[in-house]
């Protein structure tokens, strides 16, 4: 168990800086998810914590100690890889026991730890099999078992579920959650899938192009995105954005629609303002103001609710609506934004306009 922290860390490959000055603190026992699009540098951050990459500048600390110069094996961490990275010629048992054998643990201690991990992960019947005789989900469980037996200070997960099919991914997500509840080990989890991030994280770190955009609990990030990028990346389907111009105390979105700016951010808003609305934050039909007319292009019925792809003034908006109130494709619909649910962003900087 340990706290992990990065202090002013940067990483360059040759002349390209891929991670810009970053400060992150991951508390003891916390499950932190780093999320961002592919190539944003989230895996690089994880690999710097693991010791597989060295930080160009700054300091990585595990349990308060500087570890920049410490070999991965001495950092007391365990890592789970996207492609499992199991030793193909070793049995499941040997895969899990390998690291312990190198550490020269006593035979019965190894046996005890492996059996315990196998118990937690329900791998008991497969201990003598080779990885190629296992399904993807089982292989990933072996990879996690290899991490568990080490009883490390922290687990590092590098997109562990990306190679699994959708159904297994959901199941493994729950298992990882359960595992963390049982073991309470500090965990850092990298993914590009914002659903994984939302469901697993105690706190999530949203990274874009080598910069930490926002750190916070999932709902906090969802409710209060700090920038256009975070707002668009977190949430599925993603937030609708409309480019607007400042007119007096409101934002003109075209077609005569003016959304009033909340008083506390009026001073901060510039000429160009982007208005963001989540799909579920529309009121359809009667009520609400200001009202505007949408033309429904396509309808996706999901059962409990439906997603309307609707045209407004040249933009396509996604609107989530109660399943049994779904209008047919081709019809028109009057809608409004729920009070207080419009997000305002400064278009040139992409920053949220907030008090």
């Amino acid at each position: 168990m340990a706290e992990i922290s990065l202090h002013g860390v940067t990483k360059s490959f040759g002349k390209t800086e891929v991670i810009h000055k970053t400060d992150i603190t991951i508390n003891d026992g916390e499950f932190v998810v780093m999320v961002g699009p592919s190539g944003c540098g989230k895996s690089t951050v994880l690999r710097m914590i693991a010791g597989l990459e060295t930080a160009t500048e700054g300091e990585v600390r595990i349990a308060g100690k500087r570890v920049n110069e410490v070999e991965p094996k001495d950092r007391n961490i365990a890592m789970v890889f996207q492609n499992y990275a199991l030793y193909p010629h070793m049995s499941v048992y040997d895969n899990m026991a390998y690291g312990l054998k190198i550490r020269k643990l006593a035979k019965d201690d190894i046996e005890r730890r492996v059996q315990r991990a196998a118990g937690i992960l329900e791998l008991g019947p497969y201990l003598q099999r080779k990885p190629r005789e296992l399904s993807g989900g089982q292989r990933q469980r072996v990879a996690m078992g290899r991490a568990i037996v080490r009883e490390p200070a922290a687990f590092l997960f590098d997109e562990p579920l990306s190679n699994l099919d959708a159904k297994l991914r959901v199941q493994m997500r729950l298992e990882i959650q359960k595992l963390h509840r049982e073991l309470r080990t500090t965990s850092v989890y990298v993914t590009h899938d914002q659903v994984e991030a939302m469901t697993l994280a105690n706190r999530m770190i949203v990274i874009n192009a080598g910069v930490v955009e926002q750190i916070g609990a999932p709902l906090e990030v969802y409710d209060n995105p700090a920038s256009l990028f975070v707002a668009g990346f977190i949430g599925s389907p993603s937030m609708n954005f409309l480019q607007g111009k400042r007119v007096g105390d409101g934002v003109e979105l075209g077609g005569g629609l003016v959304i009033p700016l909340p008083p506390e951010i009026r001073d901060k808003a510039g000429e160009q303002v982007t208005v963001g609305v989540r799909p579920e934050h529309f009121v359809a039909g009667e009520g609400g103001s200001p009202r505007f007319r949408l033309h429904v292009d396509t309808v996706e019925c999901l059962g409990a609710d439906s997603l309307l792809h609707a045209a407004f003034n040249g933009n396509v908006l996604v609107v989530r609506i109660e399943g049994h109130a779904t209008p047919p494709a081709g019809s028109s619909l009057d809608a409004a934004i729920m009070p207080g649910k419009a997000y305002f962003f400064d278009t040139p900087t992409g920053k949220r306009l907030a008090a």
Partner: protein
Amino acid sequence: MVENRPYRDFFAHAVLVTGVLLVAFPLWVTFVASTLTFEQIVNVPMPLWPGDQFLHNYTQVLTSGSEKGSSAPVSTMLFNSLVMALSIAIGKIVISILSAFAIVYFRFPGRQFFFWSVFVTLMLPVEVRIIPTFKVAADLGILDSHVGLALPLIASATATFLFRQFFMTIPDELAEAARIDGAGPIRFFIDVVLPLSKTHMAALFVILFIYGWNQYLWPLLITASESMYTVVIGIKRMIAGGDASNEWHLIMATAMLALMPPALVVVLMQKWFVKGLVETEK
């Protein structure tokens, strides 16, 4: 084939049977000749059915060699060939797997340079560099010895290159997982790389054993005493002069014996050989 077309079947089989006959007939003649007496062979036409001299001919070549050409027993030659082929095959595998491991898994100054300098030697087969190699072997004083037979042929660009290509298909994560597990480079090599390379090593062994066994020019150049002859050289030495003076029955028996070990290696290791060439599962 799903369809049933008798003519095509017949045609296909005819081609195959012809092919087999073309390849097998000389072998059969060799075998038959090795079981006849000298007189039976030189009489035209030579019989095409084995005679009764099998034991006699083979015992003679194995224990005392031929009478006219070279008098070294073929058993010694076979032993020399075996030593040479085994040292070349094993030596090449050991050296090239180690150098490939260094080139793929270590970042050291001049890595690319060393890789390319190994690679470039692919363009220089034994025959091209044989005079300088001879000079080096002479200076080292290893002419006419087992070491001299094998050592200069051990460095192998081909095998290094093959292992390098194979290592590059091993996912980086495996090396990283081993690093986190606490395995140093040598443990990683022994515990992970070697077991994964087993089939490739077996396939290479077959190829290299035959390569070593069939070496002709180099042993011809550096062996002087009959006790160092390899069997391939031995056959050549037995063919001393004109047709009539050659003991064809003994030469043919020697040829049959020379043929056996490579054939055995291929037959026994066929399964591994094929696996090593086609295996894709990592």
